[in-house]
């Protein structure tokens, strides 16, 4: 089966790309569209580092053949900051709480947290633990990340991820 044209709205911009049947959403974002903020970790759906928002909901983009989501809206980590490059409150909270060390898990952590705060604007510690349970970090020990998400919720939950 030949490659086909797929249309997506990525971070608010219409995009068109040519996808082979085996092209995942992750690969389309990184290699077709050059949006390398989204990382490839395990390619098994187990580490969460490739998490993006697909029609507003978090998904592990490594498990989605991109031809199955033709026409979808996608938000990646590149879409969190505002047009002038100003960080979102969630991103600023990650920075202020030292919630990244090597930074590889950070895009996925941000996208999962963004979705979590949209569903649960004032989460408990336990809800953050549960919400981030699909995102692996091998550096921080998670404490600064959980602190950042709770901090972001306390700042301006309405603005987070906007």
């Amino acid at each position: 089966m030949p490659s086909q044209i797929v249309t997506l709205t990525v971070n608010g911009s219409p995009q068109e790309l040519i996808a082979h049947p085996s092209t995942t959403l992750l690969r389309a974002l990184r290699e077709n569209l050059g949006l390398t903020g989204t990382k490839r970790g395990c390619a098994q759906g187990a580490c969460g580092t490739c998490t993006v928002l697909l029609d507003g909901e978090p998904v592990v983009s490594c498990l989605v053949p991109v031809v199955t989501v033709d026409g979808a809206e996608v938000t990646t980590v590149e879409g969190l900051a505002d047009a002038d490059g100003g960080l979102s409150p969630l991103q600023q909270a990650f920075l202020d709480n030292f919630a990244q060390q090597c930074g590889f898990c950070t895009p996925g952590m941000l996208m999962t947290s963004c979705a979590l705060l949209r569903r649960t604007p004032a989460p408990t510690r336990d809800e953050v633990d549960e919400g981030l349970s699909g995102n692996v970090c091998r550096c921080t020990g998670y404490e600064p990340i959980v602190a950042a998400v709770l901090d972001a919720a306390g700042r301006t939950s309405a603005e987070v991820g906007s």
Partner: protein
Amino acid sequence: MLTAVLVPESLDAARAALADEARPLAGGTYLMPRLNDHATPPTRLVSLRRVGLDGIAVTADTVSIGATTTLARIEDDERLAVLHSCIRSIAARPVRTLATVAGNLFVRQPYGDLAVALLALGADVEIRGGAGPRTLPLDRMLSAGLAADELVTGVRFDRPAVFRYHKAGRRRFNSASIVTVAAVLSVADGVVHDARVALGGLAPRPLRCEPAERALVGRPLDEASVRAAAHAADPLIEPVDDAYASAWYRRRVFPVHLRRALLGH
């Protein structure tokens, strides 16, 4: 290697596409990791994402859930609170947004906790094949499988009076099952009148455990009857070693988790 991913927009088109030596793809949370990770032979997939099999219908007595309804959608539906402890025990939200009800019926143990819950709930599976629609009890479908030209279109179960669900994993959230117990109980005047018990993590597929049910019925729901139920289940379970737990460990801790599921402690 994926050589084709078709995205039909109706059930008939999906079934026609599947006839061409293709495999159905629902959420992809079980199939895609294997395709990503291994040098697989040329594989054709038929995505069910757009065939229109998602949806939830709840009446006073029954629940019907379309085959491609995602676990996240169940999690967000207050009418399906009975399933929420089960759903939240499966993976994490970015996976539950993809994973589907019917997909969960076909994953291998120690995954498939929703199938365990549905087995305890006595769910029927709605199936569409060349000979038209048919309905099969889930335990029959799990043992007999489907014909090559058939697809699950939905599941249906009666709302239970009392539903118990307990899962032991390697950690509090997001772990495959070491032992999963789901049960529907009817207790009156302190005596168990009816029981349906299903187990996960303890056999190659979700296990309906009738000997345990017989050990409970007609007796008070207490430590002694639950111990007897675990004893009755022992010859039936066939746990395996995997990365999560050894077969020995699963068999050893099963009575503890049966007690926690049925008695809450």
